[in-house]
């Protein structure tokens, strides 16, 4: 008998133990805030774990991004001009004087030399987000064909844009209402701050394996 059948048989045979009655309990009431409070809560929570939040206007955020890039002496930036936000960024950079080298993700990570470049010489990446969670200061990022998984992970600086009307109160509210049950992408991410570890003496250190800086541009 194979392992699968054997495990399932064991479980099925003992399933209806008369004296194991699962307890029942209602979900506790979850916090809700108004739009202004949600943005404040989000900002407060993500700032507490070293996330940087910048309020921008719909028309000046690329300028803000460039300013931050220059302050941080970034040499290059990975972006996806095929996306709505990426296109705005690309157009701005074309019309502006700057020293920043703009890079694009090739057709595949396996393309000659790109993986090495991504790992060892790309300074920063810019991606979109599909929203955020106020309670925990969390960005919701769904990697896609234009902005693949590693874009928000491998470069040391991650710029992410967030529309302020897309902030949920809690993760539970999001799952209740966003229809994710109908189908999830191959990878979906919640990102709450830059990467960190406290594995040595419970002392917090940022920039473990992922980005050491997470810069959120709120529009």
């Amino acid at each position, binding site marked *: 008998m194979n392992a699968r059948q054997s495990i399932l048989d064991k479980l099925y045979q003992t399933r209806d133990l008369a004296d194991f009655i699962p307890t029942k309990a209602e979900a506790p009431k979850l916090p809700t805030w108004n739009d202004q409070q949600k943005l404040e809560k989000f900002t407060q929570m993500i700032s507490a774990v070293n996330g940087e939040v910048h309020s921008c206007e719909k028309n000046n955020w690329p300028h803000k991004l460039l300013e931050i890039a220059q302050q941080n002496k970034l040499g290059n930036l990975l972006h996806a001009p095929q996306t709505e936000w990426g296109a705005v960024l690309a157009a701005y950079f074309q019309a502006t004087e700057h020293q920043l080298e703009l890079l694009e993700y090739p057709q595949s990570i396996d393309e000659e030399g790109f993986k090495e470049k991504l790992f060892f010489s790309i300074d920063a990446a810019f991606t979109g987000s599909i929203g955020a969670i106020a309670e925990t200061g969390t960005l919701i990022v769904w990697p896609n064909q234009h902005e693949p998984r590693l874009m928000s992970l491998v470069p040391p600086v991650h710029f992410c844009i967030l529309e302020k009307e897309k902030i949920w109160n809690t993760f539970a509210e999001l799952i209740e209402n966003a229809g994710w049950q109908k189908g999830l992408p191959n990878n979906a991410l919640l990102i709450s701050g830059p990467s960190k570890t406290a594995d040595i003496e419970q002392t917090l250190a940022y920039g473990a394996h*992922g980005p050491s800086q997470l810069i959120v541009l709120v529009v």
Partner: protein
Amino acid sequence: MSNSQKYTPNTSATSHIPVRQNDFNHQAHDALNDGQLRTNFRRAMDGLIAKRTAQFPDSDDLEARRLHAEAIRQRCLNKLPQLLEQLESNLKANGIKVHWAETAEQACEIIYGISECHQAKSMIKGKSMVSEEIELNHFMAERGIDCLESDMGEYIVQLAEEKPSHIIMPAIHKNAVEVAKLFEDKIPDHSYTEDIDELIQTGRRELRKAFFNADIGLSGVNFMVAETGTLCLVENEGNGRMSTHVPPVHVAVTGIEKVVEFLSDVPPLYHLLTRSATGQPITTYFNMISGPRGENEKDGPKEVHLVLLDNGRSQAYADAQMRKTLQCIRCGACMNHCPVYSRIGGHAYKTVYPGPIGKIISPHMMGLEQTKDLPSASTLCGACGDVCPVKIPIPSLLQRLRIELKRVVSSNDPQQVNMKGAGAGYNAIEARVWKIFSWIYSSRYRYKMLSWMASRFGKLLPNIGPVAVWSKVRSKPVPANKTLHQLMEQRSRQASGQSNGSDK
């Protein structure tokens, strides 16, 4: 604090954990005499307790959430086999391959088989306690495949050729100086520093090369969602994402109990998991994997495999009381609050899962013969049960395991759970003593007689056996001259004498 004896657990990354019977007392004794180890643990546990407390300012809200989480876990466990089948079919539909393993050995064989298919030479590992449980690194090393741990704590422990001493923070038993010395010894081109940021940056540099080169990535799983066919991974560092996104093949390995029915079951459990574990409102990353690299995707693994492990879990499942053991979401709060764990540390238990949860789960994985000391390695203070986010009644499960350990095994008792190693702790003399005890206590006259004798001749109690052990560091207990009953009678006689028959 003096550090006369350096505490080095007798294990190495390339050897199986030597399980010597009845050595818990010696291990605990050695650990208790290691001042540095105790300082490291005390400081760490105090910090974790304070952080958790700060996350739950409203005790009513916490209780409501715990009840809700317990209900979720119990509902999912009650449907476990159906949920596993549903999970499997949804994962398959998403392009994820599912494997089943009854034993640790089988799980290792499966993972090695996948590596062989891809001629893998190196494996990078996210954090997985189940991979520790099956001794995967050892198995792969014997077959020429290098496994490198990428969680900073696991990486430190692997460099030191030790085992994790905590399920959430593997290197919690070490301080910065110990890590600094270790890095200086083991990492080329690294000069000595005690600066934690610099140490972490060194780890980042070294591991980045490994992520880049790895042929295969291995991870654990925190929640598996049957409804959508999704694997959820909880982490702060990004090594979990690196291990699951970068190599061309991703293998996830986890226990069969980790499945939940609905996506909506995840947020309430995740909410409690991070707050209970490290006092964080959320971890940096919550990584939800529902498929390998799609046709139009530019990165991600081309293959994703899931290995579902039983290894004694179905034995715990078969018993209504012990099934609650499987509610665990591996937050580690029980060990952080345990007075025994915080004094002896994780290595003294000689099990992969230390502390209270380890004491109730290891007997199912290893059998009671090899875990004889665990059910009684507890003061039954109840702290673990009080802080458990899914309300596992750990103290009563420990009592139950004590019964299983000491029971007389009879093959024709239909009520008896078929627990591996049941009766391993049976001792005829002890059983006889308790028989006599219950015979005396079940009769008023015999009890009176015994207490009269004890109050007269108790001082003569010989200093042997358990009494000798007890009195090694304490005064020998001496029964009082009068029993409580006698004292109470005396008082009521005095009272009625004073009150002259009034009813007050």
